[in-house]
């Protein structure tokens, strides 16, 4: 890519009161893009943006499946926890406790004293 100087910058420096240390030369690209190229470029940009959107949307949906899996696991563990709580309650129910070997081995105290 090459650049060329513009004459107006070169010739009008003093007239325009340019200050010191200020660029007075601008380079203009020699490559010119026509309307077709512009259209193609815009189409490409839209395509890229679309792909970016699709990638993100797919990734978000992927998270949904992960979340769904975790929700299922939570529900399953919750069910298991509930079952265990029911089992625990059944095992500690009065009837079970009364029929346990520990309870059967208990004896009635012969005498009771009270702390006053």
């Amino acid at each position, binding site marked *: 890519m090459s650049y060329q100087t513009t004459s107006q910058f070169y010739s009008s420096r003093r007239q325009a009161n340019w200050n010191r240390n200020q660029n007075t030369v601008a380079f203009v690209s020699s490559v010119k893009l026509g309307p077709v190229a512009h259209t193609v470029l815009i189409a490409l940009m839209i395509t890229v943006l679309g792909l970016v959107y699709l990638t993100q949307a797919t990734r*978000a*949906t992927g*998270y949904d499946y992960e979340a*769904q899996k975790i929700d299922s696991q939570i529900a399953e563990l919750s*069910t298991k926890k509930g*079952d265990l*709580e029911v089992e625990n309650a059944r095992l500690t*129910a009065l*009837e079970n406790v009364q029929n346990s070997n520990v309870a059967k081995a208990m004896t009635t105290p012969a005498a009771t004293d009270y702390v006053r």
Partner: protein
Amino acid sequence: MQLSFQKGSRSLILGGLLLVMMAIFVARLFYLQIIKHDDYVAQAAAEQVKPLTIPAKRGLIYAMDGEQPVQLVMNQTVYTLFVDPQTVTNPEKVMDVVRRVAGGNLRPNIDKLIAKKDTRYQIIGTKLTRQQAELIKKEELKGVGFQEMTQRVYPEGGLAAQTLGFVNAEGNGQYGIEEALNDRLVGHDGLLKSVTDISGVPLTIGNQNINKPAKNGDNIALTIDRNVQAYAEKALAAGLQRSHATNGSVVVMDPQSGKVMAMANLPTYKPAEYTKVEDAAAFNNPVITKPYEPGSDIKTFTVATGLDRGAIQPDSTYVNTDSIKVEDRTINNATKGQTGTITMQTALNYSLNTGMVTVAQRLGDGKNITLDARRTIYDYFHNRFAFGQKTGIELAGEQAGIIISPDDQEGNAVRYSNMTFGQGMDLTMIQVASAFGALINGGTYYSPTVVAGTVDTNGTLKPASPKPSRSGVISAESSAKLHQMVRTARATFYAKNDKPGYDVGGKTGTSQTIENGKYVDNQTIGTYLGYGGDSAPRYVIMVEVSGKGLNLQGNKDAMPIFTDISNWMIDYLKLQPRG
């Protein structure tokens, strides 16, 4: 060079055609996208956005074990096993597996159900556990599926069945606390509304998603103590067996708070098997739903009224002739022989009707049960002791009972003379037991309650706000006198039955029943109303036993049940003997 179409050229015609077509497309698109926009958006949403209900969990019900809440009613996930007969490819294997894993949960004719090829859905098993469902799922049987559901489970079996009630197939509470507090127990379902994929998995895309979490029902803790309840049920069953009675009820309350510690009834049932109950009467809780003529237990209330109004003292005397005339009726004592000049304490000890009618007369002009006397009795019985009114206990089906006002035509002197010894009015046991608590606790009426509070997810009890109480139902002085009189009434005959050193008192009741509008002598209800404690009353127990065609007595049939529970309560509450 300037390009231009020639007039009438094919290019111009083609251009024109294209323009027309474009115009049609634009018009059509305008119609579809602008005019019909809302319709198509709605159609798309109907297909893509699915509302999913997040079911709320029904609240658990706890009983107390001393100070600790313990689960009495819980929820468990169970599975309904179904088949699609058209999809089942190997019926023999299906039958073999399900019989091996869940034989007890299967319907009897599963081979016929699976063979119904003209149907797509046949339930072949119910209430399978998670383990059973997982074992069947592992076999990957084609055409076999599961539906998840929740059912109530009762770790303590039939304990406190009538207090609990049950939950029917529609998920509604029936009877007991399940019905009375259904709104609090049921909670509120949540809603998940979102775009789903073909498998129904909710996706986060879309801008109309709603995620409203479910609000689970309250976990209710009852004041029922499972140990007291279990012992009351056991003692009641033993008592009914001794007396051959068919029906019986016991209520145990804390007279210092109105909390019900036990409420036992026979016959009873198991809430988990409510569908097997043949007589729906077993669902009722007679303690609150069956008003009856309470009989001589009420004499304690008559005496309390007399004491509080200053009409009598425990040592006030009257002449007992074993009968007394009220207008054109003669009222006799059931226990005869204590004739002569006797005290009110003796009248209470021997449960003499004449003594109670005398109290009513002394509330009037001394000789008649005047309108003023009747109004006084009504004020105490109805307004102060809350007889004939619902107590507001948190259980379904409570009845108010009946007590006739003296301003009513039927509220005459004869009726009020009968009311002094427990006839001519219908009360529930909970009314009588609650009011009795006020007589012996210094005069404060506590509304009975079965709700101790709510239990959070950590199992911590958050106590309920105390229910309203009324002090000064009778004066503290009158309460102290009555307390002593009731203690003496029991000690006179039954002191040997009680653990020595404790404060135990009570009153027997034997009520006649009414058949075809007339009192009959061959069918009586036996009751006992009493309390126990150490330095103060700690429990009130009321017992009732009855049976068709049975003559049941308060002292012989109900009182031993009271004694059994009372002596056990002294140990359970770790009460220390006085002195």
